[in-house]
């Protein structure tokens, strides 16, 4: 409200309306740079991809002709595409499960008080701050049989009798990749869970203790239900982010062995740049975008509730 004014109410109202209008303009002005930036770098390329998807362009830079929905028909009828989609789902679910379990365990640990806990809470996230290429180098080195530490360690612990090839079979490869990607992300998620845990008031626990609830019961009856919403939100975000993971898979297995880890992003990249079928890759991209958008729209209801404010 404006300062005390001696003017007639109509003038005051007019001034207020003008200020509100100016503020609205300002708001648009503040949001515009971001929107323009995203529009130019996301919407325009998506439109281009749509155009490509109805042509038959092969190698990038060559001309294509309009072919209508032929690419879509071929892609949607191609077993390879659906298999890749299934692998992406396996990837997403695997990551979600492993990361959630590891992150929860870590968060519970870090919620305890012990000497050095504050340092631990900050530095546990070190696996996330290093670039993916380093993660790839680390694990490619550690899992190899010529100098890598993991096989000798496992043998010394008596868990295996001969060295294993972690990327030698399909299921093993996918598992290894999921574990590696989870290793990278779980501390990040753990921190978020940790704050969720810390927001649960202590009196709730104390009341339960008075009622004779043991550690396990406190976990399942109190901690989990109160933490569940946070877990849910983070799982959705994590799903969207992990679908897009390309470099870890590509740099470690190239989608192999025998296509076992060819998730959708890998398939798209390969189709565009190795099979030189750009339009097909664009078609797959459009389908992938539509699927993800659909999922995101449903999920966004949770992330951006109708009510404004804290």
């Amino acid at each position: 409200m404006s300062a005390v004014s001696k003017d007639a109410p109509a003038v005051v109202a007019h001034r207020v309306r003008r200020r509100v209008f100016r503020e609205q303009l300002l708001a648009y002005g503040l949001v515009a740079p971001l929107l323009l930036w995203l529009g130019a770098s996301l919407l325009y390329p998506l439109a281009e991809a749509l155009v490509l998807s109805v042509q038959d362009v092969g190698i990038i830079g060559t001309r294509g002709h309009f072919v209508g929905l032929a690419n879509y028909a071929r892609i949607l009828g191609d077993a390879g595409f659906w298999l890749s989609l299934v692998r992406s789902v396996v990837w997403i679910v695997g990551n979600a499960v492993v990361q959630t379990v590891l992150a929860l365990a870590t968060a519970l640990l870090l919620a305890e008080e012990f000497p050095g806990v504050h340092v631990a809470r900050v530095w546990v996230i070190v696996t996330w701050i290093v670039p993916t290429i380093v993660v790839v180098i680390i694990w490619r080195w550690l899992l190899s049989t010529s100098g890598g530490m993991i096989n000798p360690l496992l043998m010394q612990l008596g868990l295996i009798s001969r060295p294993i090839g972690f990327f030698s079979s399909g299921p093993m490869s996918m598992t290894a990749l999921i574990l590696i990607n989870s290793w990278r992300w779980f501390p990040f998620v753990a921190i978020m869970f940790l704050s969720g845990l810390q927001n649960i008031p202590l009196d709730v626990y104390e009341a339960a203790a008075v009622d004779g609830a043991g550690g396990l019961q406190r976990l399942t009856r109190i901690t989990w239900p109160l933490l569940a919403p946070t877990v849910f939100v983070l799982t959705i975000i994590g799903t969207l982010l992990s679908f897009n993971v390309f470099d870890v898979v590509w740099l470690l297995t190239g989608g192999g062995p025998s296509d076992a880890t060819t998730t959708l992003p890998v398939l798209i990249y390969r189709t565009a740049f190795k099979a030189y079928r750009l339009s097909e890759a664009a078609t797959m991209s459009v389908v992938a975008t539509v699927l993800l958008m659909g999922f995101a729209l449903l999920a966004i209801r949770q992330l951006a509730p109708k009510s404004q404010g804290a």
Partner: protein
Amino acid sequence: MLRRSLLTTALALTATGGLTGGARAAAPVTITLWHMEQPPHRVQRVQELLDAFNKANPDIVARQEPQSWGDVYAKAPAAIAAGNAPDILFAIPDFTTVIKQLGTLAPVQDLVAELDAKHKFIPAAVKPYSYDGGVWAVPLYNMALSLWYRKSVLQAAGVAAPQTWSQWQAAAKALTKGGVYGMGLPANKQLYTDQTVYAVMTNAGASELFNADGSVCFDNPESVAAFKFYKDLYQYTAPDAASWTWGEAEACFDSESCAMVLQFTVIKSYDQQGGKPDDLGVIAVPHADSRTASNTIAYSNAAMILAKDPAKQAAARKLITFLLEPENYGRFLNMEPGLFLPVTQDGAKSASFWGDPLTAKYRPQVETMIANSQFGMLFGFTGEKVFPSIGAISAQNILAETLQKVVVDGQSPEAAVKAGQARMQDAARK
């Protein structure tokens, strides 16, 4: 900024078809070279040679931009499409077919003929680039797969260096003990596995992928025999071989975890590990029992000229000529001593080649490598005609993919080869 305006100038020149080339004769002509030899010591050696070239040719400024093989299949076509192409692009034969399809490649048979008269090319090096009535790149250096081993290790196991498949298998079996793998073979869906698979195929008599009319003839008894043998030999390899690239195989050999490997070279890393030159053995890839002589896979690496502007084309030709001069050529090849082999006869005799300490130290081995390379061939480039689909077949590693079906998925060689044939036919469709 300066680089960008130079680029804009280059574009303008290109766009006007070099009409203003004459007017620009006063300023030095800049040419850019893209090559895929990224390891720092190789980049350094190339720079030394470029500096010498630039000094000898004050009207030309030649620059290098090292790229990675992983990126360049995507990047080069994109750059050409956008007008950002380099003037010289190094290539292997299948990569050339991809670039040629974009319609920007200048035939260089006249240059090759000229250089041949001076230095005498090894025919096997020029063949993969001669088709469609022209020669599309100038061969520069060769790489060929051989079988590497330690003489002392074989002696201790009581086996001689194998020359036939049955000897090979027996040796691998005898050498697999005490945590050592008798024969390190890869099964990754990657170029290295394509190469080892083909090295075995060509020693079974299955060198051809295409018939004269361009139809795929991958599915034949010799191919099946080759995959069956590879599978039999694969049981003696390391457990993680399905994720091997060249580096891992070499590491296996260097750490003495593998008794034998198929490699272009292991000389440098072997030496670094402290191996003794006398103990390093190398022999041609063993051939099937029914055959009498060995073949191998050989990669003739060459230089393509992409420049359109006449002045830049001339400069590019000058640079290539400079590199092949015997006194420079040896130094060029020795950017990676013990790996790159000469494609010219006088290169194989040049003092600059044998002058490198490592090459001299392992002279017997390098001589064997050169001898082996004479019988080198490359899949898709063995006939009179080259079919463009080889680019996609190579880029998608269909040979390796077929192998994985056999050793990873457990399919029969017959079924896998049949599927491989279908995949190649699919890659060939347009």
